């Protein structure tokens, strides 16, 4: 026992000296950083992801400018500038630090791309303000918003100025005969062959919103996001797949037309895949994609509006928390516990 007592007597003394002056010749320069693990970080950061998305959106934007002229570029620029300025202003008002993480750039850019090229620029700016101030920041900012800010902004613009948000103009390369409206409108008449219609829809030579018309450009941008691991294949595939399948079995409908026309492509690759407003689990993503697809087809074929992408994604955004709740991942080792009782 005596052996054990000795260290006990010693300890308080040693402890005290340790606190006053650390042992040995420890100098201030030799004190190292204490930081929590892991001490490695992957390359991805929120702002890098945002700017890659913005980069991928250059392709649909370029297609829009090519087909609709420079008025389209102005819409996009005004939308981006207004979005960033609004985010800055709201953050200052809320007393929160403003981080240029690229989120507002992506929101503004996306909003510009889902508006008609002829939209008055002041209305575009109002849309950006609504997107950021109401749909995003009022809910708490990035990470807390329930609805996709760009789609929410567009929905609010539609409520305010229905005519301006649904007035479509032909592209610079279209004959006058088809100037009526977007292909999804009831009054749309196509006089050429089916394959030439598909081709025009594919490359984007058709009336519509700035960034929605060219499926080709969207596929290039979306493919880039898939390749870089920014988005995940489940939502785009199930969304587009569901629309194709439903219109295939729906009498008198052309699935290729439905996949290529309207905002489906842009919505499926760039809007429905928005991290914040879509489910986090793989199963949830599949349910989300199918839900978007079903709603889009119902709105297009049975509803009063020509296009359903915007509202179907917003509807599924609202359901995202509950989808996540019921698609929790099965943890490793759980089943065994149950089977063993």
């Amino acid at each position, binding site marked *: 026992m005596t*052996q054990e007592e000795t260290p006990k007597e010693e300890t308080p003394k040693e402890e005290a000296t340790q606190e006053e002056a650390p042992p040995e010749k420890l100098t201030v320069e030799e004190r190292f950083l204490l930081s929590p*693990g*892991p001490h490695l970080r992957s390359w991805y950061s929120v702002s890098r992801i945002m700017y890659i998305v913005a980069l991928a959106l250059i392709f649909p934007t370029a297609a829009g400018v090519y087909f609709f002229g420079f008025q389209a570029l102005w819409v996009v620029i005004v939308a981006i500038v207004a979005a960033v300025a609004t985010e800055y202003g709201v953050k200052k008002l809320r007393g929160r630090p403003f981080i240029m993480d690229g989120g507002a750039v992506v929101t503004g850019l996306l909003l510009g791309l889902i508006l008609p090229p002829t939209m008055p620029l002041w209305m575009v700016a109002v849309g950006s303000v609504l997107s950021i101030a109401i749909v995003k920041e009022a809910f708490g900012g*990035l*990470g807390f918003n329930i609805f996709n800010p760009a789609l929410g902004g567009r929905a609010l613009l539609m409520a305010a100025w229905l005519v301006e948000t649904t007035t479509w103009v032909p592209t610079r390369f279209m004959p006058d005969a088809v100037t009526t409206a977007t292909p999804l409108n009831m009054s749309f008449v196509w006089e050429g062959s089916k394959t030439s219609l598909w081709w025009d829809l594919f490359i984007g030579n058709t009336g519509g919103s700035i960034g929605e018309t060219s499926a080709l450009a969207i596929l290039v941008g979306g493919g880039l996001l898939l390749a870089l691991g920014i988005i995940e294949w489940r939502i785009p595939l199930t969304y587009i797949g569901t629309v194709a399948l439903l219109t295939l079995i729906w009498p008198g409908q052309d699935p290729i037309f439905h996949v290529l026309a309207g905002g489906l492509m842009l919505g499926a690759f760039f809007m429905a895949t928005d991290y914040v407003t879509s489910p986090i689990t793989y199963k949830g993503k599949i349910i989300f994609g199918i839900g978007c697809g079903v709603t889009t087809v119902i709105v297009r074929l049975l509803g009063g509006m020509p296009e359903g992408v915007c509202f179907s994604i917003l509807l599924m955004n609202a359901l995202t928390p509950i989808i996540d709740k019921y698609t929790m991942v*099965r943890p490793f080792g759980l089943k065994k516990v149950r089977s063993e009782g």
Partner: protein
Amino acid sequence: MAIMGIRLKKKGAPHGVNLPESKFTAESPIEPLPLPEKVILPLHQNLGAPCEAVVTRGAKVLTGQKIGDSEKYVSAPIHASVSGEISGTPMVINPPTGRLIKALTVTSDGEDKWVELEVAKNPKALSVKKLLEKIREAGIVGLGGATFPTHVKLVPPKDKKIDTVILNGCECEPYITADHRVMLEYGEKVLSGLSIIKKVLSPDDVYIAIEDNKEDAIDHLEELVVAMGFKDEFKIIPLESKYPTGAEKTLIGTILGREVPIGGLPLDIGVIVQNVGTAKAIHDAIFEGKPLIERVVTVTGAVKNPKNLLVRLGTPLRSLIEYCGGIEGKANEIILGGPMMGISHYDLGFPVTKGTSCVLVKETIPVKEQECINCGRCLSVCPMHLMPTMFAKYAKAGRYDACKEAYIDSCFECGTCAYACPAHIPIVQYTKVAKSELIKRAANK
């Protein structure tokens, strides 16, 4: 060179991440570090109970002499790693917990006089009980980093039959090459130690799991298995290099397709995993009578000459770094262990302990935590199929019970989620906070 029947088909873990390997010292032979002037031996170097000193200040000790022991079953004794005099009984910080623990300082007499090493005449004929006793007396703990006392791990409960033993040579953490070099340079000892493990547990199958970034170690052990006559006993499984393949539960899942139940141990499904360094230590204890007083440590990162060193336990980190030419370039952090699960320490006077596989010197630029953007990267990489972001969210809100319902106890803090997180959320920290809070609450009930 592939010999039929020993090397099995390569397997890969379904989850995890590919990390930059940065194994700069893979080709560097193990160099013995010159004897330190002084060693600091914390009396708590295992996952179980702490030891009490069995020598007093001023006592003369020999290398390999027991200086700390515990009456508790789940504990492992501590031995003097140099000969000399017990010169102090300081308190040192235990990095994983941040608490102060007792330690003994031995000032070396520079002679390295060993205690008389007891080796049985025919070690292979020793009874299982005797083997376990020797393993305990040698102070052997899991050298992969967990430091669980080996003599406890090798005695499964009577109702649990162990059918498989896996020797873990994965070393999936970046930078570390200690186990790699041990397999290459002490391969015979590793296999001999493994044969002792096999004798103690008498399993049906024995697998040696090595990641495919160590092709030379796979080849070497394959040849040794044949040369040493273990051809029918040991099988080598190459694994895809990925993090955290070498984590116990992941490893078992990958190799055997069995899931360790939540809250359970590998022995619940008939498996025991041992690290290659531990196997070598078992050989040293049984065939050479040597207690665990040294280990291989990789010193790497921002040092002039990164090396693999054979280090006496208790050697201050400063000696290791100085031997490697000192810190070079920008560095502000010293990490004990690998970059993923290692723990940073502020003081170069801190000693190498049984669980120190690596000393990594690196520059860390603190990043700001952002809000979760729900990207799901943490879910897709989690080896335990958990939802790590939820732990962070719940912990921030103080909803620790919700953490428990989300199976936070299954998390072994590998850090893959926080690595992948683009919002730089320190998920592991939140998880640790929630876990310790849950333990406190359970204790208060």
